């Protein structure tokens, strides 16, 4: 029987006073502790019994992780504790990274986005993570703190499977950093859900294009597909076609087909695998066509 009022299972709430303390605790309790910020994914999965943790470590706002800043020379830094509404409302983000705003605003509802964070969305490593595609086409990098040393992780190699990343016990992602987007870039995010808004995606496609004199076609495209593979997927073969051949409707159709051929979706409650494949083709074609029309 379904419990109509499922409370959270028992756990201990830990609020460290510094990143170092948090990292040490997480490393010492590797299998029992999990960091959280907004908790929007973590609480639901604990309630459903999918996640079983003895400790939840609240890392919100430790050592200045609640800041968002834009530097016209280096780009955008979004702290781990910055919620999605703050990202979407930031004037410099809207001006320079509109596709990130579009992606953030597609997540669930306004009141959930008061809690949800982009760093959390990335670290949960769901293939359906709505802000991951935009973060990848924008060439995002994570800043990772560990009591044993700090490092940067590019998103291109971060994801290892559903919920699996390169993060090790004691690692805490403190921020996601986006360089300045390429000159003259245009981008588009298309999310297909079971309803118009608020749902998880059946398929999502994020496309960013910009003029590039190194490419034979004169343009470079970055394409990321969501919900169609164990990790967010870069459609490399489609990108190569758009870089190598003069761009026309036929080239875009060929690239969209290549994107479809590169994905490996599954059947689940939201959609069949076959439907997802065709939607990858159609939405890639639509998104690339939109971006291309803006680039000309």
């Amino acid at each position: 029987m379904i419990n109509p009022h499922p409370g959270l299972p028992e756990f201990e709430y830990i609020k460290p006073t510094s990143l170092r303390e948090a990292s040490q605790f997480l490393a010492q309790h590797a299998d029992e502790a999990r960091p959280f910020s907004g908790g929007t994914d973590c609480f639901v999965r604990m309630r459903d019994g999918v996640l079983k943790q003895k400790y939840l470590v609240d890392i919100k706002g430790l050592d200045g992780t609640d800041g968002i800043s834009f530097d016209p020379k280096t780009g955008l830094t979004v702290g781990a504790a910055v919620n999605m509404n703050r990202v979407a409302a930031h004037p410099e983000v809207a001006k320079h990274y509109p596709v990130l705003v579009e992606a953030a605003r597609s997540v669930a509802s306004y009141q959930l986005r008061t809690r949800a964070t982009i760093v959390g969305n990335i670290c949960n490593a769901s293939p359906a993570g709505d802000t991951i595609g935009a973060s990848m086409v924008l060439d995002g990098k994570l800043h990772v703190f560990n009591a044993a040393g700090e490092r940067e992780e590019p998103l291109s190699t971060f994801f290892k499977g559903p919920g699996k990343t390169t993060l090790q016990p004691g690692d805490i992602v403190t921020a996601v950093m986006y360089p300045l987007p390429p000159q003259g870039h245009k981008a588009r995010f298309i999310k297909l859900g079971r309803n118009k808004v608020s749902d998880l995606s059946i398929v999502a496609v994020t496309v960013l294009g910009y003029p590039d004199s190194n490419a034979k076609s004169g343009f470079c495209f970055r394409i990321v597909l969501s919900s169609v593979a164990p990790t967010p997927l870069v459609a490399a073969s489609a990108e190569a076609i758009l870089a190598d051949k003069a761009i026309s409707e036929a080239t875009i159709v060929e690239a969209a087909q290549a994107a479809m051929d590169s994905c490996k979706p599954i059947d689940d409650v939201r959609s069949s695998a076959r439907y997802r494949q065709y939607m990858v083709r159609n939405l890639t074609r639509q998104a690339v066509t939109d971006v291309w029309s803006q680039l000309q």
Partner: protein
Amino acid sequence: MAYHRITITVNGSDEVVDVPSNMTLLQMLREKLSLTGTKNGCAAGECGACTVLMNGEPVNSCMVLAVECDGASVVTVEGLSHDSQLDPVQEQLIEAGGVQCGFCTPGILISSRALLNRNPKPSEDEIREALVGNLCRCTGYIRIVEGVKKAAEVGSRAA
């Protein structure tokens, strides 16, 4: 499981509450402070029946731990009216017939108040977008949206 003593301002009143780690803000409001206007619907951050204002921004109170609210200021549906005077959103929702069974209403009111606080003259699309996370299975939303529109015309008052 450890208990944590927190200090929280709820509807303008300072409260000191002992809460276990796994207690949500929703459970604390209903079970410790007897503020049962805030409803438990899905307990998974989807239906919006438990929406409250936390430090001025709407949150799903089922998705916030009570212990995280130490030092926070929370407004529930009970805190929308002042001196027996209903908030314009409450008045206009009644006027428009935007309440049927009433279960979603507290969440709708809080989300609408939050919208009008950040955007006093929203378009219909903006109203609908702000209420995406508040499910209503009775009304079909039309009268709710009408009520919020009228409340915006009447003028807002920050909760």
